[in-house]
């Protein structure tokens, strides 16, 4: 791991603390619906910064975020982190769609959460709609069909990133699987 990547992971911890905080959660728990949630996340400074640092090392960033989501889901009071989990899923969706899809499928089986369930359902539905089309490489398809309940939520470069990391490496697959297993119980 190069120093840039190491730095990225150190920074991540700082963002995790902010997003897991009550101050962050209360801003989101009062929102009137899913479209408001996505709009508010799109404007959130912490969220944009978290997605920007992903550019240093997308693979490790994505694994660290997935691991953190699984950790929160494994907490006995995971419902306390509902808004935080939704925010992480939103970030993952922007950076690594296939990881977002995997985690979302896991979140769908959780009870007692609301926004994160909504977010994961949205991601799963979106990815499955893409999968119906065989031409995965068509950025144009995504650009024109991305259902934006989220106004301007995903800028073009991030969208391209989501696409380019969609076919993730075998390494990431294996690590993700082991992370999943570790928190499965």
């Amino acid at each position: 791991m190069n120093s840039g990547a190491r730095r990225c992971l150190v920074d991540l911890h700082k963002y995790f603390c902010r997003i897991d905080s009550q101050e962050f959660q209360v801003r989101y728990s009062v929102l009137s619906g899913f479209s408001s949630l996505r709009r508010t996340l799109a404007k959130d400074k912490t969220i944009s910064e978290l997605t920007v640092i992903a550019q240093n090392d997308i693979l490790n960033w994505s694994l660290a975020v997935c691991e953190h989501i699984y950790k929160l889901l494994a907490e006995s009071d995971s419902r306390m982190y509902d808004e935080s989990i939704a925010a992480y899923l939103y970030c993952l969706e922007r950076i690594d769609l296939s990881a977002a899809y995997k985690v979302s499928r896991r979140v769908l089986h959780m009870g007692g959460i609301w926004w994160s369930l909504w977010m994961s359902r949205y991601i799963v539905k979106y990815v499955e709609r893409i999968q119906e089309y065989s031409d995965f490489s068509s950025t144009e398809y995504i650009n024109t069909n991305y259902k934006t309940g989220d106004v301007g939520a995903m800028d073009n470069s991030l969208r391209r990133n989501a696409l380019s990391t969609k076919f993730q490496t075998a390494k990431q697959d294996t690590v993700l699987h082991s992370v999943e297993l570790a928190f499965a119980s």
Partner: protein
Amino acid sequence: MTLVSFDVDIRKPIYARSGALIQQTDFQDLLHARIAQTVEDVQRRTDIVLKDLSRNGKRISVVRSCSSYLYNCVGMIFASRRAWIEINEIYHIFREDGFCKISFDKLSVGDIVVYTSDMAPAHVGLVTTVRRTDGNYGKISSVEVLSKWGRDAEILHPMHSVPSTLGTASEFWSEKVSGGFA
């Protein structure tokens, strides 16, 4: 009368005065018991929100209800606390229910306040009190609103005392002006 339990929480369609269907949230099944919240959850979150609000110098009047039933601000006003209706539906509802946009000085009890954030609707509240400086004719000095904050509590509050993510009170709507739907 038998109350329907969360386990068989089947939401019914909702229609506007014109007969047009009001779109409820896409994921109706998420309102099912599996993710239903408890009253304690609502109370806990509301306490945190109110503490945060008071740190920002805003106060509320009364927490009216901490029901665990899942409905939102639009559902509170337009579906008698029975539905979760996406905030984006609000202009469709106004049009189909015959509401007209009014200026702030025309505001009276029963009218609707729309809170917007970056030009998009973010929240709605029902006007419960309008105080004027000179009885019924002077300038409006204060407005109280009843609104449901997300899936949390239903709260009676001064018009501008809402969490910042709910936006600012910027539009006022009334159905008593037009006398009918469009």
